[in-house]
């Protein structure tokens, strides 16, 4: 089952990976931080201590982090971190897996638990096993054994109990909490999945997704139907539209990969939306690439309030070039959105440049500078990739943001120094430079198990994948979890 789910997610991800990441519906205003799934091998642990400037004064705040994986157990604990406090631990227990701390499960298509909330997104990036990012749906306890999963925790402000069990490729689950009970019936196969979720008042939603190939073109489709009044009791903000139809297709040509996306959705009568996008991604040799795309959007992307003004049309285009060698790289990006055809009457424009170099002693220096201009009422998020997280910086008005990162191996570990300077309109930044410093060390728990990749002191961890460089567009959210998956899989997504 896990293999099937992972395979389906991988196919969907490969079809639609070109899209950028956006804060989830439950996120408030301001910056939003996504925690990366850890990259630890088996029998490894990592400790990190750091400090970062806090507020507009000279205050700073220290933080600590411990991550471990081995013997079927794994976890991450954090302290002092404003955006990612708390942690999560998994450990084998009674032939099953006990999980404590932050929970971000996904059942089936996510109608009852672990949905995306975005009409055009197939699978949430931060829900379920193998997700690229660790979500924060709730906190509590979970236990998985022999195809049965139990959870008890606090989700969306109230206590939730849940149980699900597998039966072949199918699964049946029940959620209870907040005076309500919801059921879920789902089926996951290698190329198809569907889910029916309902509550005791007869409210329901159903969704089906399929992926496959038509000739050399890989295609994914998703359809959803149901009642607008149905909402997941655990994650009501991610309910998404009750009716939606989305498709994605990718084909590799000799010069470039071409992807097309389309989605239609309706929140309620008279509140519908549509989105279409075309993206071209060309590899220009071993280390260079060029990508560009155009997109058209109509209607509200997020569930509008009954008194909200109708959302207009947005058309945009973007292009991005990356080049250089591993020793010196440069990436340039430009993005423009307008309210009229061909992106005229601009409402959002962003220009980003990033350069990074190898420096002596095995270090790396990166310099990112972004300039934007956003019309009042529009939103723009600038991604800022850091060692263990991706921060989406909320930006408004006209301004610029500069970030300099230096990584150096030092004292049997790695030290990361970061300096950010923002000018102009941002919701969170002042004119004072913001700094951060973190020292981390990754070690093996047992020297005998030396078959894993890399050395103990090697610098690892992501510094921003290609999709993370992208400016978050008016519409656009990643989909498709991917990853190697944990060494000790629970029988259900968690």
């Amino acid at each position, binding site marked *: 089952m896990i293999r099937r789910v992972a395979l389906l997610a991988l196919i969907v991800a490969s079809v639609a990976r070109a899209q950028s990441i956006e804060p989830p519906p439950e996120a408030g205003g301001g910056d939003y931080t996504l925690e990366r799934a850890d990259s630890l091998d088996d029998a490894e642990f990592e400790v990190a201590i750091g400090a970062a400037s806090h507020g507009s004064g000279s205050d700073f705040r220290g933080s600590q982090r411990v991550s471990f994986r081995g013997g079927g157990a794994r976890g991450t604990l954090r302290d002092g971190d404003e955006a990612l406090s708390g942690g999560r631990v998994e450990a084998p227990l009674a032939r099953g897996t006990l999980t404590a701390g932050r929970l971000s499960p996904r059942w089936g298509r996510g109608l009852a638990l672990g949905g995306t909330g975005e009409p055009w997104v197939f699978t949430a990036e931060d829900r379920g096993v193998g997700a690229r990012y660790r979500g924060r749906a709730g906190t509590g306890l979970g236990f998985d054994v022999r195809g049965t999963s139990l959870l008890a925790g606090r989700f969306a402000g109230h206590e939730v109990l849940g149980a699900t069990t597998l039966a072949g490729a199918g699964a049946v689950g029940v959620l209870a909490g907040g005076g309500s009970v919801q059921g879920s019936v789902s089926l996951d196969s290698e190329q198809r999945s569907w889910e029916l979720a309902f509550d005791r008042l007869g409210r329901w939603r159903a969704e089906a997704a399929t992926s496959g190939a038509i000739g050399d073109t890989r295609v994914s489709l998703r359809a959803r139907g149901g009642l607008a009044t149905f909402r997941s009791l655990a994650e009501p903000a991610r309910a998404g539209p009750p009716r939606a139809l989305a498709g994605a297709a990718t084909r590799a040509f000799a010069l470039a990969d071409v992807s097309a996306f389309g989605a239609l959705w309706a929140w309620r009568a008279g509140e519908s939306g549509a989105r279409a996008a075309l993206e071209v991604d060309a590899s220009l040799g071993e280390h260079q690439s060029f990508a560009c795309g155009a997109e058209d959007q109509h209607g509200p992307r997020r569930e509008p309030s009954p008194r909200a003004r109708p959302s207009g049309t947005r058309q945009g285009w973007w292009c991005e070039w990356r080049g250089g060698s591993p020793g010196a790289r440069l990436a340039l990006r430009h993005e423009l959105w307008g309210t009229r055809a061909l992106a005229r009457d601009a409402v959002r424009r962003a220009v980003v440049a990033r350069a990074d170099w190898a420096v002596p002693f095995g270090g790396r220096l990166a310099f990112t500078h972004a*300039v934007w201009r956003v019309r009042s009422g529009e939103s723009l998020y600038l991604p800022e990739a850091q060692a263990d997280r991706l921060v989406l910086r909320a930006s408004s008005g006209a301004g610029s943001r500069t970030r300099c990162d230096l990584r150096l191996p030092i004292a049997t570990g790695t030290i990361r120094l970061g300096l950010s*300077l923002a000018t102009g309109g941002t919701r969170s930044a002042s004119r004072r430079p913001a700094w951060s410093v973190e020292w981390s060390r990754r070690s093996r728990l047992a020297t005998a198990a030396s078959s894993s990749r890399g050395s103990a002191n090697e610098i690892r961890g992501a510094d921003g994948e290609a999709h993370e460089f992208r400016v978050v567009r008016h519409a656009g959210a990643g989909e498709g979890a991917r990853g190697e998956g944990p060494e000790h899989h629970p029988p259900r997504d968690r």
Partner: protein
Amino acid sequence: MLAALLLARAAAAQDFSGASPAGSTRAPDGLLDRALPPAMATITAAASQTRWWGLPDLETRSVSVGGSFHSWRAALGLSQTGEPELGWTSLGLGFGAASERAGAGLRACVRRDRDAPWSVARAFTTGDGVEAGAGAWIMAGDAVRAWASAPQVWTSGASAPLVRPLELGIRVGDVDAAWVRLLAPRAGDDGERALGVSLQVAPLQVWAEARDAPLRGSVGLSAAVAALRVAARIDAHPVLGETVRLSLAWARERRSHP
């Protein structure tokens, strides 16, 4: 006088801009003006004069020297603009590293008004405008150069008269070349886009560039004799008029460009 004062503000952030076309790996002003170090190890000395929009009272005069040590590049420049009543003096410093395939640099500029005679005591008082920026370029192919220049990443003191935003550019070719530039938007505009071409008819090199918002253009001509290069550039603006730049540079290259 008032018009000259207002117009002068727009010229202030280009104290070291010479008459070279954009994206040239040989521009002697690249490191000082845009934090883009030259690809070649060179020793340069340059002087330039700019008459902004045909105003005789608004001229910029600058001198600069540059040098290199292995892959390191450095440049120092001094510039003076306008009459004492409304002019200013700028001191620029650039530092970077470059190879034949890539380069990166930092620049800093200190600007002080000329409304009072220079004195040692005044040199240590506040009131200066300071700006610092960074830039990087890379050879994306045999003759394809991409660059990013952010001349004003950080500013302090007296506000910079003109906001110089991030500039991205790609240039194809060396002496016979075409390029495209993109300037990020500022608070009061929607950015700028430019398209240019350059042709060499030895010993002359001619180039032209068209820009939008508003639509305008520049043409340039340069001639090289041994280590000396003389260049002229004219920028035409539909409202402000013409800006004329002249530059004379001496450059000694330590190794040939690929």
